[in-house]
């Protein structure tokens, strides 16, 4: 292995870590500040793409043994399910609710269905972007 590559890969690892943190931040800040599921998803995707660039694709895929198409589908499922949930509770489709738990040690935890919804969005975005990139780059 060439020295250059080692350096590149080390840097990549670092950058990916930073990007992942950013993605997480963006995801949760969407509530009150710019951000949200979509952007977080795209940022997350770009982190993974960076990994592809730094390492070769196969290594990365070994490390993350996921079928990204399925991730995308899962995301849609999650997003739609939050809506279907409301049907079960007999409130209008896609009515969001906030559940607050007072957990020991962690204090108040707010769990909103919006978050679930946004998570679905983010997952779809990651899944789709990676699927497209992977499909094309495998083909070219």
């Amino acid at each position, binding site marked *: 292995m060439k020295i250059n590559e080692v350096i590149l890969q080390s840097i990549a690892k670092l950058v990916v870590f930073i990007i992942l943190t950013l993605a997480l931040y963006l995801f949760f800040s969407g509530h*009150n*500040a*710019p951000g949200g599921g*979509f952007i977080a998803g795209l940022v997350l995707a770009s982190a993974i793409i960076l990994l592809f660039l730094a390492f070769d694709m196969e290594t990365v895929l070994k490390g993350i043994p996921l079928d990204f198409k399925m991730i995308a589908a899962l995301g849609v499922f999650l997003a739609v399910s939050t809506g279907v949930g409301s049907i079960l509770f007999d409130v209008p489709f896609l009515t969001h609710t906030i559940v607050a738990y007072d957990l020991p040690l962690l204090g108040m935890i707010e769990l909103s269905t919006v978050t679930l919804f946004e998570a679905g969005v983010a997952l779809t975005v990651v899944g*789709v972007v990676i699927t*497209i990139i992977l*499909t*094309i780059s495998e083909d070219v």
Partner: protein
Amino acid sequence: METLIIILAGILVTVSTYLMLSKNLIRIILGMSLLTHASHLLLMAMGGFKGNVPIIGDQAGEFIDALPQALILTSIVISFGVTSFILVLAYRNYETFKIDNLDKLWGIKDE
């Protein structure tokens, strides 16, 4: 400001139309992407720049109406999906027919 944006959008529409009438698929796709930008700019301008603050608690200046912002966002995402699909389609086309002149492509017979 609105007038300026509208004229800008108009110019983008003009360029996009010109590109879409060309015989090269990539230029057509570029034209489509310009048209999307133009439509977003129009949405923005139509909403006006005296809208409400996008982030509550933020101060000052001119803002885009919040609802068009949401619409533009949705539209951006959708056009991203469409663009990526048509890009891949174009790629498959070049690969299959090895032609980048559409006028020639339409002339190809099947079977």
